[in-house]
């Protein structure tokens, strides 16, 4: 029997991580597009337990920070204005999972904004932006992988099962798509589209491009499995009893490909997240002010930000646990099922 405990642990970890990002509205204290023009590039605020007079407080607090007089990037704490941190506070309205309207946030403060991970060039809360940005990046990865696997399985199964000229044609097309330079494809696509692309349009454009180019590799893998599965004895027996093509595919052959498809999914999702980040990093992703991990990292293209605002690196760290868990899941799936190979984890997208 297949031992399933290994990958279940990874799956739970993954569910937790995605849950946090999916309920960004609750975990993020602020609207990711709200600007605070008095505090651009504010470093992460310090959480205090001991105040300036040396007294200990049970409830953590922070000091309001202001620009030092005459400066535009140096902040100082005003120690006469301690603001206690509160949990489950009500703040800006949002829709949990895009549905449930709510105004409760995990943490926040009443008198002043609290910047856990500092602020960006417009004084927008970096922590909130990372959480909301994750929604775009991860959703693009998940949708992209889903689309890719759907078409990959469909085309791979057709090619493998029917063989002959269909196989030849589909696999040559697949090779063509593998060789396609997807970045230039996107540049070209962008040039054809109307000038102003709304964030939603841009998002679906990215997914379409990622999916359109990515299906070839899983298709080839699925084809290989189908090719060997259709010659198995029980498949031949079923065919002998008069089973239709559709029945055979559904009942006997496609289940054989499940392990390959699952492993591929665990590999493709992070790969496509990375692809979305690359596009947004180059300014081809969702437009301002909507955040995505790639566009958050794009500010690091400026030398001055690179050397003086270290907290802008935070989105790069945010992706680490996601990628680790996906990688863990992929290798656990592979071990458990003994099928599939981890190929091209960090290589080209």
């Amino acid at each position: 029997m297949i031992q399933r405990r290994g990958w279940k642990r990874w799956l739970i970890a993954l569910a937790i991580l995605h849950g946090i990002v999916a309920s960004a509205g609750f975990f993020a204290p602020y609207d990711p597009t709200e600007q605070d023009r008095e505090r651009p590039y504010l470093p992460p605020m310090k959480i205090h337990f001991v105040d300036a007079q040396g007294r200990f407080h049970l409830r953590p607090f922070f000091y309001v920070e202001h620009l030092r007089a005459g400066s535009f990037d140096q902040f100082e704490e005003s120690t006469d204005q301690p603001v206690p941190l509160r949990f489950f506070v009500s703040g800006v309205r949002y829709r949990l999972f895009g549905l449930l309207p709510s105004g409760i946030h995990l943490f926040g403060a009443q008198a002043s904004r609290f910047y856990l991970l500092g602020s960006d060039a417009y004084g927008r809360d970096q922590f909130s932006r990372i959480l909301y940005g994750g929604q775009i990046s991860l959703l693009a990865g998940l949708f992209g992988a889903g689309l890719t696997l759907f078409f990959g399985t469909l085309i791979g199964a057709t090619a493998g099962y029917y063989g002959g000229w269909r196989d030849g044609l589909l696999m040559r097309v697949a090779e063509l798509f593998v060789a396609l330079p997807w970045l230039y494809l996107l540049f070209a696509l962008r040039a054809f589209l109307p000038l102003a692309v709304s964030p939603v349009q841009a998002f679906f454009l990215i997914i379409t491009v990622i999916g359109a180019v990515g299906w070839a590799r899983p298709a080839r893998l699925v084809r290989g499995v189908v090719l060997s599965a259709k010659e198995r004895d029980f498949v031949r027996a079923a065919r002998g009893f008069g089973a239709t093509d559709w029945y055979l595919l559904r009942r006997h052959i496609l289940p054989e490909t499940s392990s390959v498809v699952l492993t591929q999914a665990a590999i493709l999702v992070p790969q496509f997240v990375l692809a979305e980040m690359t596009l947004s990093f180059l300014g081809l992703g969702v437009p301002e002010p909507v955040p995505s991990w790639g566009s958050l990292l794009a500010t690091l293209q400026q030398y001055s930000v690179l050397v003086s605002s270290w907290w802008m690196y935070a989105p790069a760290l945010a992706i680490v646990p996601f990628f680790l868990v996906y990688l863990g899941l992929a290798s656990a799936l592979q071990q458990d099922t003994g099928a599939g190979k981890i190929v091209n984890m960090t290589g080209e997208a």
Partner: protein
Amino acid sequence: MVRMARFSSFERLLACGLLLASAAVLSKPATGIPRQASPSEELLTLPGELGNRGGRLVVSLRAEPKTLNPLTAADAPSREVILGAMQADLVHINRATQLTEPALAKSWKISPNGLEYTLILRKGLRFSDGQPFDADDVLFTFRVYLDENVHAPQRDLLIVGGKPITVHKVDAWTIVFRFAKTYGVAERLFDGFAILPRHLLEKPYAEGKLGQTWTLSTAANQWAGLGPFRLKEYVPGQRLVLERNPYYWKMDAKGNRLPYLDEMVFLFVPSADAQVLKFQSGETDIISRLGADNFSVLSKQQRGFTMIDAGPGLEYNFLFFNLNELGEKTSADMGRKEKWFRDLKFRQAMAAAIDRHAIVRLVYQGRGAELWGPVTPGNRRWVNASIPHPSRSLERARSLLKEAGFSWKNGPNGESLLQDSDGKPVEFSILTSSSNADRTKMATLIQDDLKQLGIRVQVVPLEFRSLLDRVTQTKEYDACILAIASFDADPNSDINVWLSSGGMHFWNPSQTRPLTAWETEIDSLMERQLTASSYEERKKLYDRVQEILAENQPMIFLASPDILVGAKNSIGNFHPAVLEPYVLWNVEQLYFKNSSEKSSR
């Protein structure tokens, strides 16, 4: 004479050996040049700190110059190298005082009717290859500039009152320029017209090949100028090396011939960040055109260099709406938007809603000036100080919109959205150049400013060329943010922007006749100031132009960045100006203070 930020044109000219034909005439070895001036030469004495000879100045250039030919140079790097270091003009505008002063012409006289300028040239001067300079060179130069077949970008400036100016030689040192109409600032006109060596260029001109001569690969002995430096070596993709012109016609107060420096090296460093790194590591000696963010990084860690904020320059950033007359094939959507944009109250409301203070603080880190007109505070002689400077007011914006028939309704998430009189939501996009982070940042700030009025704005960063194409050719856009950096403080340098027939009249370029009454008035004011003779009179006319612009808001002026520069502490006579070239305008006087510095490289 207007340069748009990041504008470069002209195909790279093919290197060709056409000049080799005339090689025999040239290349006299530069020997026996006295260090002290000889009495027969009428050298110009410059005041200022005395320096010591020698040293090599290394500066970054953000792109390779396209040519070394002043007749075809249209891109900023070429102009910077040619006009800054290699060539000289008859009358020069002092970048520090912003006033004209004698250069190759030691004096000039204006006829009582203002139509005739008589220029007396300096005697005994030589080109950088040792050949003598006289009135024939000047005559040749202006003949070439005025020749339509040469396509010199400066030619338009020599057309005054619809007719080209005429040039006559009186004797070897006297030249007369005649204008068809009185021209207010005729002597300013000579700045930027590099005087060319007739002995080198007459032959290619006669053969009609002048446009292709003097490319970057020109041999050093085929090239000559009257500037402080002359061509030494060009390494494609890496650097351009200039050496001291031993025949230069300026000297310091002690009679030492200038320039002080032996060599100048222009490194081609395309990205601003790479330029900063090169300056930081000491590879380059001077840095200019710094962004405020990089300036503050360098200011914080200064080691051996001084960073200077020279105050607001002449660059003005502005937002403008598409006010073109649309053809029949325009979509209903565009027609509806145009109706808003043409409504003066709408534009005034936009101007009132934009937080200029935030732009200066967040984009320029406070190193800039808020603008309400095209003339920056850096242009002291021409700014109209009486233009009102209203601060941001959303209430005013709302009441203006209400007067113009706009109203608000509640959106799906409880926010209030602006709609026009037909109930259609007000939303538009703003184009910005994707290569300019500053203007993209301004657009993002404006996006948020206007969101508070219930307007949905999309920011569309586009590659600069396709942006310009949309604005001036296809005219398919809603609004756009651009910047103009004038070469000269004089209003004439921007005439192409203000005249309704001008190609850079961005909101509605190249009109056959002005569309609105106020554009008609600007046209006539600009024409009048062109021929008015006194500064006071011109100032009055140009003040009125600024007022009309502020009233009608065809451009919503945003902010002007300070000129931010830096130099090694060892460089003497370093006095940055707010006019281009910001740091190299007095390159002949720059010197290294201690002698160890120049031998260290």
